[in-house]
């Protein structure tokens, strides 16, 4: 569960990247965070994960406040950043083991998880190579594996499907569904509206730091008295701003 209450972040004191944002993502839900480039999606995610400190407001992950109990809050989630170019000099297996160490995953558990994840993402043969030799999609997969190895309650994924091949994208979507269905939380940002439409239980649309809509896809349709696709709605939502 993720709760944001009255969260504001401005850069240089003038431009408000996120403006009094309030949002609750309950357990058991895949939540899609939509918006055009520069809408404030990544800033919001960076605030939830403790990378950026909000100017005001509170953020809780599974009830733990990221501002006051940062370590407890950070143990609740796994985060896939928008750029997978991390620790390029490490080998794939070294990176995943490093992440397991950071989250204190027991030896026997990690072994089994790494092997299973590598197989599911078709990475078994690449684990002993440096991440630098990976393609963009493979880097994305190793970062996702680094998150899933510690089996976090809450998944926070910034554009996780970018660069993945269709099979891996399918696997990840399948895993997101399984995770939410087991009563846990998935929060992800995306540009791909079809994915949001098919995958998300609920969506929020953000533009210029303000949430314009939050609810199910159906509610959104009713909201706009239209049966058109989300893409159309999305354009309608954002173009008049």
């Amino acid at each position, binding site marked *: 569960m993720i709760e944001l209450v009255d969260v504001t972040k401005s850069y240089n004191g003038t431009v408000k990247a996120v403006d009094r944002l309030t949002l609750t993502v309950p357990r058991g839900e895949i939540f899609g965070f939509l918006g055009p480039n520069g809408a404030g999606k990544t800033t919001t995610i960076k605030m939830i994960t403790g990378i950026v400190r909000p100017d005001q407001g509170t953020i809780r992950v599974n009830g733990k406040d990221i501002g006051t109990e940062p*370590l407890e809050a950070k143990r609740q989630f796994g985060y896939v950043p928008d750029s997978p170019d*991390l620790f390029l*000099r490490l080998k794939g*297996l070294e990176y995943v083991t490093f992440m397991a160490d*950071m989250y204190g995953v027991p*030896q026997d558990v*990690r072994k089994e998880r790494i092997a299973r994840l590598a197989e599911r993402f078709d990475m078994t043969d690449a684990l*002993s*190579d440096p991440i630098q030799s990976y393609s963009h999609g493979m880097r994305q997969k190793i970062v996702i594996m680094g998150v899933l190895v510690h089996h976090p309650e809450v998944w926070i994924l910034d554009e996780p499907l970018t660069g993945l091949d269709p099979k891996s994208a399918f696997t990840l979507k399948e895993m997101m569904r399984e995770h939410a269905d087991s009563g846990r939380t998935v929060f992800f940002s995306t540009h791909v509206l079809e994915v949001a439409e098919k995958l998300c239980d609920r969506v929020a649309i953000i533009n210029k730091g303000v949430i314009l809509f939050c609810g199910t896809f159906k509610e959104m349709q009713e909201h706009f008295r239209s049966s058109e696709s989300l893409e159309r709605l999305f354009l309608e939502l954002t173009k008049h701003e």
Partner: protein
Amino acid sequence: MNRTWLLTKMLMKNGSGLWSGKRGSGWKKLLMILLMAVAFFPLMSGYVMGVIGLYDGLAASGQESALLGMGMAIACLGILFFGIFYVLTVYYYSQDVEHLLPLPLKPSDILGAKFLVTLAYEYVPTAFLLLPLLITYGVKSGAGPLYYLYAAVVFLALPVIPLVIASLLAMLFMRVTSVGKSRDRFRLIGGVIGIAAVLGFQIVIHRNSAGRDSVEQLTQMILSENNALLSLVTRLFPSTKLGAMALAESGVLAGLGYLLAFLLVSAAFAAAFVLLGDRLYLKGVMGIAETAAKRRCVSGEEFDKLTGRRSPVLAFAAKEWKVLLRTPAYFLNCVLSCFLWPLLMFIPVLSRPDGFATVREWGQFLQEDAAAGIGVAVAFALALFMTSANSVSTTAISRDGQTFFVNKYLPVPYAQIIAAKVVPGTVLGILSMLLMCAAAGLVLHPPVQFLLLALLASLPGIVFINLIGIIIDLRMPKLDWDSEQKAVKQNWNTLFSMAAVVVTAAPTLFLAFQGKPSLYGISLTLFVLFAVLDLVLCRALVTKGPEWMDKIQS
């Protein structure tokens, strides 16, 4: 040409240049420069005094213009050596390379722009090497305004020729090594061999100048025409003679002729560079970011070993080590330098024909208590210097670059991350010291207890410099770089930590030479004093460090 210029401006703005640092406001930068000036004032004033002495000595026989020639030739040599590393960074290991290659640009457009960027960077070390000499010479000879005008032109044009040579050497190296799968490793070995060659060259130079330390002896050396060192250096850069003559004759029309000839030769080199660069550059730079992959399955036993569990601090420190050892720029600048300094220190001594004998005498001195006390102070100062020179801790945060944000979302206390980041620098500092003690033991044959006490007295000092280093980097990290070389090499933080070494070591040496303390007295004092300082710094880091870390935005 127009495109070259546009590209140069873009590269300068984009961080390949010197003036791209976004860190700090105007007054902060001014304060930094002032601080540097204070720290390096003793060095510079020593330099100027030396120039004055040489000038007077040479002027007595009307040979003072030789001073200009020698100064310029040495500056050229310095530019050539430093230039090779800058060139590799800017021409090849800059991230913009992969974006520039697909553009409809001629190799010479890219090269021209990158050459100008490197040239701009070279003016800083050249200014350090040459300006004191040029100004002192002008003042001493009572030169007119034309001298200073010519001096400015010569200063601007001087780096062109050595930089062209450096560029061609680097391009040739990259072209030749651009084969096979493990290019990175190949080039790393090439770099090590290159540094070994520089060391060898240094030994040759020292052998040639052996026993000529004083200003009088140097004067004699310059006056005697058949000197090997001087003719070697000037023969490497014949054009410097033209530059020197232009300045020496600035009062008469011939000076202008010399100046024009100097500019003409420089222009010819630049033209040759463009022509050759068109042929050499592309083949060396294409696929520079490619890395070999084996794509093999990890066996069960290996898998068990590689996935073994470690505490977060240990795992973090291990990650720091791996990145340090596997990134060529970090390995050459940080790790290798830690093994080189102890050797470098003995080169001036050992390269003399009578070196061993002199050094043995020093070893004899160390048998006396007071001399041994001073010896410990010297060893302590050297340990601090070597620790600072490897710049491992002063760039521990900077090296993270754009991935610094990872530190923020991991569920690991900032204090533990900081602790893990101090480990490599401290271990390498201690390793340098051990190596120096071993070398000193072999060469000097000092009493064993002297070596042990020198080592013991230096340990807290080494930790101290590392803690200062990480504090400097926490306060002023350089995260916005586009090639790894820049994180470690073009980082002011190392200079700050050097300033800290000067501030710490200078009084220690002064007091030791003045007070002549006993061996045990000074060892114990240094140990206790710096252990206490370490505790204070640790405490400051534990309480303030996380706050500083939190403030860093990548």
